[in-house]
């Protein structure tokens, strides 16, 4: 099994393409996380559960007979209000506090979300059939589901829309100002409370888009949220806050890594390898930073 990958270049192409398309999706979630981390200085463990909730919105549309592809428009709108409500209910009380408090509080939210989704949608693994068909490449040796291409395209589209919105609109400017210095922004007349609520809403909306795309490309299950949180966290710490091209690139890199880990180690170690990679990246980062500190001495 280990050597199959070197004997079969076609498998490598397949894994790389799958990984890149998957990685763009991860990058979208990570962008949301970078946004709220940068602006509000909280780490949201419930990020992955917001994604799954968005996915279930698309799935319930599919159950109602509407094509789940429309979920990429409906889901973010609903999720924006979910995020806004969540901010008003819980998050506004942890914004100025220690980061650890926000981690624990959102951990609690994640548990509540998982269980509620379990009640409403059941504990089965579900998928919304998009019936987009597949594209064959290289004499039918590489298969790409069109839904994956669709999802990568939509992710890029939303990312571009968001970047333009953040650059041009009034709210976008207010968000960027708050991220730079919340206190100064407040003095200059920015309603930071509103900005925070909007930021969290936008983050939830991005999660909603990603969730709807996951519903048509992969599978949904109430308890698989945490790996998405960890992936986005990982992408953000590798790419840094507010560096969008780096977010996209490291997202793709993570996607490719995952596909290869899947082929080489086997599917049962896939999630484990993601978490191990997180640990390794953090440890690498720690040694790199400590070397810098010694240099300063």
């Amino acid at each position, binding site marked *: 099994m280990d050597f199959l990958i070197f004997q079969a270049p076609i498998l490598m192409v397949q894994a790389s393409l799958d990984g890149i398309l998957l990685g763009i999706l991860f990058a979208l979630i990570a962008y949301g996380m970078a946004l709220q981390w940068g602006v509000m200085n909280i780490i949201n463990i419930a990020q992955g559960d917001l994604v799954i909730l968005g996915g279930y919105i698309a799935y319930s549309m599919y159950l109602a007979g509407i094509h789940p592809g429309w979920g990429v428009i409906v889901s973010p709108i609903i999720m924006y209000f979910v995020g806004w409500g969540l901010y008003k209910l819980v998050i506004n009380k942890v914004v100025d*506090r220690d*980061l650890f408090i926000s981690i*624990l509080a959102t951990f609690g939210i994640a548990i509540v*979300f998982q*269980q509620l989704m379990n009640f409403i949608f059941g504990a089965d693994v579900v998928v919304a059939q998009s019936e987009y068909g597949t594209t064959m490449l290289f004499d039918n040796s590489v298969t790409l589901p069109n839904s994956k291409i669709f999802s990568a395209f939509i992710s890029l589209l939303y990312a571009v829309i968001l970047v333009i919105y953040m650059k041009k609109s009034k709210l976008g400017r207010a968000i960027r100002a708050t991220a730079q210095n919340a206190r100064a922004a407040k003095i200059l007349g920015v309603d930071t409370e509103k900005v925070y609520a909007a930021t969290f809403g936008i983050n939830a909306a991005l999660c909603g888009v990603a969730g709807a795309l996951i519903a048509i490309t992969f599978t949904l299950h109430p308890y698989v949220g945490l790996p998405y949180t960890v992936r986005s966290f990982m992408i953000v710490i590798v790419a840094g806050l507010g560096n969008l091209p780096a977010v996209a690139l490291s997202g793709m890199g993570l996607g490719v890594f995952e596909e290869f880990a899947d082929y080489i180690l086997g599917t049962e*170690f896939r999630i484990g390898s993601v978490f191990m990679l*997180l640990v390794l990246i953090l440890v690498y980062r720690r040694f790199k930073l400590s070397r810098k500190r010694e240099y300063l001495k």
Partner: protein
Amino acid sequence: MKQKDLILYVGLIILGLAAPYIFPAFKVQLTILCVLIVLAMTWNLQGGEMGYNSFGNILFYGLGMYLCASVQVGMFFPLAEWTESGGEKTFEHTTTQFFQGMGFGLLVAAIIPTIVAGLIGYAILGLRGHYFAICTLGLGIAAGEIAGGIEIIGAGQGFTTPPFPKDIVDPEARGKFFYFLSFIMLIATFIFVKWIYGSRFKLILNAIRDNEDKAEAMGIQTMKYKIVGWMVSAFFCGLAGGIMGGLIGYIDSTDVAFDGREMGVFMVLMAILGGKGTLWGPVIGATLFHFLKEGFWTFILGWQYVALGVLIVVIVIYFPEGLMGWLREKYPERFGEVVDEKDRKAQVELK
């Protein structure tokens, strides 16, 4: 003051010894309570005193659980065949084999996690703040996922620990054995932690929590003490895991051993509920939490996780200082703090 302490401790020990006879139906719950208190106290040692909020102590707990059971089986029988046969056991431990295996297993379950903590400590404890928290969270979950893929310890199918020997006919014996085992562990942990609380080591840990760079500048080798602190936690977590594995009788990789979603959060929550950075806080917090949890599991079955999640959010947002912190705020004199009335009034006016 000394006399009062002595009465308190003797009273508690007598209560602990008598508890399985007073509440014979709750022996398992009492055992779990002892384990929870140990986990909360050792988490507090590094989360509360050292300021390194770890979600990853579950790693040592799960490791201890697997190690204890593996040693207990592997000492006498081939391990692979044991796990392969699942529930149907072709091998059976005799009474001596069971207790020998348990004793040796607990020893291994305590020592190996300590060594692991020492080995990974240098890399992991260099991380600060939330990076440390997330890294340890990842470590715990990765361990669970990886353990779920290893065949020899049962993979996804689970691992049945050796059943209590059949030669002992007393039906109460199993419950009593595990209760007293965990009670002894609890007392040992308490004595050890109390000793730490009176030592220079605790002051060093507090210095690291309050300002690590400054502590380093004062000439404290912070990394050394951080690793030792983590190793202490790992030692007792492994021991607790070993006992818990024997008590439950069945080890699953993600739901019992490396159960970051439950036990991993519980130990943090218990310490926070009682009050981080106090000796008695985790004990009180764990007891209170155990009652709350069992209440949820009994009266609102099905909604227990929702209630648990809400409880986490409420505790973290409204009581981040915990019960002891709240009491300390209210009655600072009882905690040996000298309060200047004038100063206090001035502060009230400022508010």
